[in-house]
Structure formats: C-alpha cells, structure tokens
C-alpha cells in the first residue's frame, strides 16, 4: 500500500463528519495531511492521490495539455496540417497546440497575520501554502514554469516562474517562511505582479481576501486587462463563515492587534450578514471581471482545490477557444 493509499484509508475512516458532503469520496484528510512536515511531500501526496483517483473524477479528461484537432478551413496556416491524419482519414485537420509549455503561472500567496487563524489543528496559512505547493507541484509535473509571490502588506518573497532543476525546492522554501507581516493589502502585490509580469500567464491568488473590496476589484481588473488569466482561491476557516463561538470573550484581531469584547450570541447575526455582503461583493467583482473565484474552507480536501483549478483551466480553455473561434471567424 502506498503512502497515498494509507492516507486515503485514514480519510475514509476518520474524516467522515467534517466532510460529510464528500462522504464516500477517497480524499486525503487535510488534518492528516497537515501533519506531514515537508510541504513538498504534502503536495506530492495530494497530486499523486489526484492521479490515482482521476478515473473516478467527474472532471475526467481535463488537462493543462489540452489540445485539439480542428478541420482545416481556408485561411489556416498549412504548416499545422497533420499529414499523418490526412493519410489515414483523407481529411485535412489542423493540429492545434495549447501554449502549454510556455505557460507561466504565478502563485500569489497571502502571508498576512489574518492567515494565521485556524479553528482546526492548522491555520489558513498552512492550508494556503499547501494549496500553493500542490498547484506548483502539479504544474511542474506538467513541465510548466511556476513562480511564487508571497505578500502581506507588501511583497515579502518573489520567485519568477521557472522550470528547471532545483526550482521546486527553492519554491517550497519560499513558501515555508513563517508569517511576518500585519495587514492584508492586496493592492501592492497586485501592482507589483502587474509590473513584473509582462508576458501573459496564469495568476493564481490564494488569500482570505479579508480586505476592502474596492481596491481588490481595481487591481484584479488591471491584472485581467493585461491579458493574464486570473484564478482566485479564497481560503476561509469554517469559524469565519459560521462564526461558531459560544461564550462571550475578548476577540483579538490578529492583524491590527485590536481587542473587542464580543458576545457571539448577540453579534453572530450581524457578523453573518456583513460577511455575506463582503462575500457577495467579492463574487460580484470577480464575475464582472470574468475571474474564477473558488472558496475553500480549510477542512476541505486539497484534491478538490486541484479539481477547482483544473475546472478553471478548462473553462478558460473553452473561453479561449470560443474567443479564438470568434476571432478567427471574423476575417474568415
């Protein structure tokens, strides 16, 4: 039995309650996963588990290496004609390559203090790092260039996208840095990435997005307008969503250090309302920009995040192809 299998078994037995919606699915239990110290090992476990479970995946067949054959139509470059297929089928097909080897993915990981919160055995930051590591590892298995940019109120770490030996290790090291900053300020890292990345690529933002919406919308829009494909993973703690605190207590803001006396019994309703407003605001902003927003609570198996990612990729692929068709059809 492989390590991944063992984790899957554990997951089946022990995590039934926390992932009641996913009961019966064989995913690695995040609590168990987080016990693995090495970030790279975690990523490996998730990705390999993902491959193993691929045949049962509802997203079967999607891949970054998406490619297609398309019937030749006048105006296409004859260089891309697949002559072998022509020989077999006596029809002209154009071989369409995705620019996948040239895919440059930027992982933007929020390392602010608010990410240090966790009502389970690990924090949102752990989950975010693991998510970033999983995506990076997954992409590296596809031979894609992955870079990382860690930020709190400013950029703390930047590794440009590369695909070369040792890059994955450096990337993991960068992700393993402890939390240092105070507030979440998305404007600076987004500005910075816009400055740094001139080539179009994939930008994955992993954050709790506990920040004012206006600036976020502006900068995401700016990034999107530069032609980048933007995917946002919003990492949230279940306690943040449901506000499941019992007794009145002093609440300590991890970012500002502010303390408030809060009686959850009286405050919960108001909290949930304001939280929902904020969440809707983000969702509206992302929808208006055509950005894929995925929410991930930290007790959610990481494989599902990977599925979300691939789902986003596939949607973008369709979007791209649709756009391409429209574009190509114009002059044709």
């Amino acid at each position: 039995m492989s390590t991944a299998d063992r984790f899957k078994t554990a997951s089946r037995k022990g995590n039934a309650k926390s992932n009641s919606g996913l009961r019966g699915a064989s995913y690695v239990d995040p609590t168990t996963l987080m016990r693995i110290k090495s970030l790279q090992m975690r990523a490996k476990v998730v990705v390999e588990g993902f491959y193993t479970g691929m045949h049962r995946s509802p997203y079967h067949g999607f891949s970054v290496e998406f490619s297609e054959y398309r019937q030749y139509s006048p105006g296409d470059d004859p260089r891309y004609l697949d002559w072998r297929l022509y020989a077999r089928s006596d029809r002209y097909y154009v071989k369409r390559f995705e620019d996948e080897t040239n895919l440059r993915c930027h992982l933007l990981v929020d390392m602010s203090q608010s990410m240090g919160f966790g009502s389970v055995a690990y924090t949102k930051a752990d989950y975010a790092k693991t998510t970033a590591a999983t995506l990076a590892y997954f992409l590296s298995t596809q031979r894609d260039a992955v870079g990382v940019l860690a930020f709190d109120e400013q950029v703390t770490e930047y590794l440009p996208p590369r695909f070369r030996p040792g890059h994955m290790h450096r990337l993991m090291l960068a992700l393993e840095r402890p939390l240092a900053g105070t507030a979440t300020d998305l404007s600076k890292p987004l500005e910075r990435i816009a400055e740094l990345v001139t080539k179009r690529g994939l930008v994955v933002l992993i954050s709790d997005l506990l920040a004012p919406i206006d600036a976020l919308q502006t900068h995401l829009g700016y990034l999107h307008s530069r032609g980048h494909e933007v995917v946002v993973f919003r990492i949230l703690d279940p306690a943040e969503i449901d506000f499941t605190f019992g007794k009145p207590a002093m609440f300590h803001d991890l970012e500002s250090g502010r303390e408030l006396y809060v009686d959850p019994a009286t405050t919960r309703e108001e909290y949930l309302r304001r939280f929902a407003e904020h969440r809707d605001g983000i969702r509206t902003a992302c929808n208006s920009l055509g950005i894929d927003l995925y929410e991930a609570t930290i007790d959610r198996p990481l494989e599902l995040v990977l599925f979300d990612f691939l789902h986003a990729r596939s949607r973008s692929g369709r979007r791209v192809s649709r756009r391409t068709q429209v574009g190509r059809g114009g002059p044709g």
Partner: protein
Amino acid sequence: MSFLTPLYLLGLAAVSLPLIFHLIRRTPKGRYPFSSLMFVTPSPPRLTQRSRIDNWLLLLLRGAALILLAAAFARPFLRSIAQLGVADIAGRKIAILVDTSASMQREGLWDQASRKVEEVLDDLGPGDDVALYRFDARHEVLVGFDNQSVVQPEQKASQLRAALAGLKPGWSASNLGDALVAVADEIDQLGNTDGQDIQTVRRIVLVSDLQEGARLDALRTYHWPSDVELVVRTVAPVAGNNAGLHLASGNETPREALRVRVSNSRDSAREQFTLHWEDRLGPIADQEPIHVYAPSGESRVVRVPLPPADTAADRLVLTGDDHDYDNRLFRIPTRQSELPLLYVGDDEEGQTGLRYYLERAFPETPERKVLLHACSPEELIATEDLDSANMVIVSSALAERQTDRLKGYVESGGSALIVLKDVATGSTIGRLMGPEVTLDEVEPVDYAMFGQIDFTDPLFSPFADPRFSDFTKIHFWQYRRITLPTDWNGRVLARFDSEAPLLLESSIGRGRLWLLAAGWHPKDSDLSRSTKFVPLLAGMLERATGGSKVATQYDVGDRVPIPGHRGLAGSISAPNGSTFELASDAASFDETNEPGVYTLTLDDAQVSFAVNVPAEESRTARMSADELGQRGVAPGQPVTRSEMADRLRQMRDVELEGRQKLWRWLIAVALAVLILETWLAGRLARSTVKPMETGA
C-alpha cells in the same frame, strides 16, 4: 452579646464573596484570536442579564457558613451585669522623681518643674498613692508611699506640695541612673508585697532637664521591671546658652598659671566668653580679662595667670553665657606639706648602702616634700627627730634602750619599717615582737623571688591591676628567714617563692611595724632598681601619715577626708557662714553642699579647701531621646484613668469569653452548614449531569 475581637466581624463582608464569584464566573474569561474583526461589532458587557442566582439555598448556606465563621473569630461572649467604671480601677502608685542637680538652677527650670509636679498631683484620683523623691548625686525620699490601704489623695497631695515648697535645686551632679534604679526597685517591691491586684499601675514620673551630663551607668546593668512605667516630664530653659568653667589640672604646673577648661554646651549659641578673678567682694582691680573662644559643643583649655599674691582673689569667674550657676571656679593655692622621715642605720655611703636609694625614693612634688633625717643607732636615744618623724626606717640592730625608744614611738601611733639587712637585727625584732621571732640567713640557689602577694592590702592594692602586678623581675640574692610564733597576730603581706615571709605588718600599740626580710641594696636584691620600689615606699609613707590628706579641690557632694583627727576638737566653716562641728571619731566630712571655700579648723590648725560645681553639670544639652531606651528603659506616654478602665474592661472580657467559649459552638454549626452545603451541591451537580448524559 459582645465581641472580644470585633474587627473579625469585617469578615462578614466575605458573605458577598459567593455573589461576587457568581458574577465573576459570568464575566468573559476567554480571549479568542480572530483573523479579522472587520465584520464584528463590539457588544457591551451585559452582566446583569446573566447574573441570575441559580440556587438560592446554596447561596444562603454558603453565606451562613461565612457569617458563622466570622462570628466565631470575633469571639462572642455574653457580658455579665458588672460594668466597669473609672472608680473600679485599683489605685495607682506614682513616684515623682524630681531632679535637684545644679543644672536645675538655670533660670525658669525650677518653676517649670514645680508646675509639672503640680500637674501630676492634679491628676490624682481616688485610691492613688504618690511619693516624692529628689535626686542629684544621691537620691532621697521626701514623702514616701503610704502603707495604708485607704489613701486620701487630697491629704497626700497637700503633704507633697508642702515638701515641694521646701525643695530647691542644689549644686551636685545628677546621678539619674542610680535614682531611677532605686525608685524603680522600691515601687516594684511595693506592688508585690502589699498583695494588691497585679493591675496596679506603677509609674515613675521623672521631672528633669535630662541634661547629657547626667550619669546613667547604673541602668546599664539593671533589668527594668516590666510593670513599672516611666513617664518623663522634661523641663527646658528659655535660653540654652551655657558654658561652664572647671579646673583642667589639679597641679599648677607652671607655678604662675592655672589651667582651666571652658566647656560650651551643644545647644549654646554663644562662642565668646571672658574670665576674670574675683575675691569675696567682687572683681579685683587692675586685671586684664581673658577672652576665650569656645564653639558650641566644644571645650577649650586656657592658662589663666594667677592673681597677684597680695590680693584675696580666690575665684575665677566666667562671663558671657546665660546661666550663672557653673561660672565660678574656686581655687585654693596648692599647699606643700613637709613630711619628716627618720632613717636609723649605719650602713656604708654610696650605692652599696640602703640610704642612697632611700634619699632618691621620695622626690619633691607640689603637694609633698619629704625631709629625710638620718642618724646612727646610738643617736636614736637623744634625737628629737623621732618625735616629729612621720615614719622611721631602721636598718641596723638596736640596743635594748634604743629598741625600747622605738617601741614607744610605735606604740604611740608611729609607723616603723625595719629592714632585716642581716641576722643581727634579730635581737631588735625579738625585743619588739617577742623572743620567739628568730632570723636565719638564707642564700637561695640562683635567687629568690616574690612568690605570694596580698593585693588586697592597701600597700599592694595599687599593683593589683594585671598591668602592674608582675613582680617576677625582682630578684633576691639573699634574705633572712623570719620564724614566727604560732600566736603571732600580724599579717604577711608578701612571701618569697620559698614560702618564707618577705614583708610583714604587725600592730604594736596604736602604731604599725613593717618587717622587710631583705634589704633593697644591691648586695641583697635589685628591689631598689625595680619600678615597684618607689610606689611601695610611697605607699608606706602615705599609710604612715594617716592616709589621704585634705586636698585643695573638691566637687560638690564629694567626701572630704579628715586626716589625723585623733580625738581632737575640730570644725568646718562653710562658704555661707555656717559652721559644722566635727564629731570626735569623724573620718570624713560629707556636707560639701555648695561651691565655695571651706575651712577646716583642727586643733588650732586651719586648712582650706575649695568645692566647685561638678564638670558634668555644665553639659546641659538635652540627652538624645533614645539614651534611656538604649539602657532598657523606654519612657512611655502616661495612661489616663479612662484608658486604664478600658484596659481593665478588656481583660475582664477576655476572662468572660475564655469561660463561655461560644466560638466553639459557632464553629461546630459552621461545619455542619458546610457539610450540608457540600452534600446539597454534590446532589445538584449529579442531577444536572445526568440529563446531559442521557441527552448525549
């Protein structure tokens, strides 16, 4: 119902503790870190809503237990009917000790002291007994305690006022320690012997200026009785500027000047003083006053030229301070007395003989001039020097007639030293002391030494100090062993290391005879070269002249010896003109009560001596507050009669409470309540747990 320790009732406040704990339990204890408070609104702490009492019975039980405990600790008791009043207090014993030393002569002090005594007398209540003591160098009972059980305070107070009216400060030094010890002893024993209640207050009220010159030595070795309280009523002069004048050295060493010490007290503000001579009538004419600068707390020794011989100036007067009592120094010129001494011997001249050393043993001093007459044994019969001699020293064998003449001299009160230079003097001794006394020549191996010395004898007592008691350096090359009859009644003052007598003293008639078993000349010993020789002979001479003589300077209160007063009529005239007749057996005169020049008239001879105020009396600055405390006496505040009644009431309460012991019952009930509370709480806890378990 009363409480012995009602302060413990403050513990009743603890009843609120269960309530407070209840409320505290509701206040937030936790502190949650949270990612961001951007969606959270603060809620005001609303305790009131939640401070609902869950279980009144438990609260009541806990409150009751605390109340019972607090009440038990407060020691409740049922007060009996007897209520104590001021009149129930046992009478107090108050000893008023008034300082009458010379320093109390300062202006205003005595009036203050009288008022302080009056205050004490005014405070007397029924049953109080009071006594009046005075002290200076000595202490004295003026009005003693009554031994009667019923004391009439008014009568006693008037008795005391009368005694006080006749009292005024004297001129003596103040021996405060002695007086306190004596009065404390007396008042302490008084309380113990008359079988009174232990509650009797024994108090000494000290009315004094507490000058730093007062002697406190006696307190150092005294354990102050714990139930005798000392209350100090201090009197203080309006002006503290006081300087004193005292003799710095007894002998006028440069004959034309007198050394005096001007000491200025610590609290003095003056620094410049002048000295001048006066006689009975006032300052003598044509003299230059001497200016003395003495800062406060310091003293200066000044050489004052003696007054011209043709004046009758007998006192040096200091001016410049506020208080006059210690500003006069009476002075009598030093008298040199002539002491004739007869030496009978026929030894050779020069350093080998005895006489050579004898002549050098009595140097002349300002007080004394020894006139040494020498004669041969043959001349002894005829010489008149024998009758006038204070002491005779014989070193040769005498013929019978000569011996008889010597014996007659000794029997009439004279003193003789016979130096047994050789065994030939044995016949002389035999005739003087009896035929059984014989002499043998002894020549010890190496040498003989002092073996045993009677340091209690006045002759050797000056050597008793370990620094001077080493006689081992004196070697005797030869000596004469004296064999004494068994019924001999003299004393052996020193023995050789061979146990043979070295120096004997024997009384013959009214006189005394010393026998020295070896000579001091180099042939016999090196006694004459030792440091002991001169003091030993001087001691003999002093004893021969009748002990001490009248000196020229005394302090007030000193005892003046009256030498040579062998049944002669004598009198002493005091400076105030009064005359004291001396009793025929009086050896001393004690009535030196005031400073001035006294004159002793003894058988037509007149001797004057000066009496001055003691130097300690000039140290008038007040002693530091803890001076008495350091010697185990802690002066306290007087307890008033109502305070005393309170104290007594408290003691009765303690006794009542001790008998009733209600606290035991309260503790028992509290324990029972606590047991009930525990049981109830346990039961309630079980009943709340069960539904939870079944619910789970």
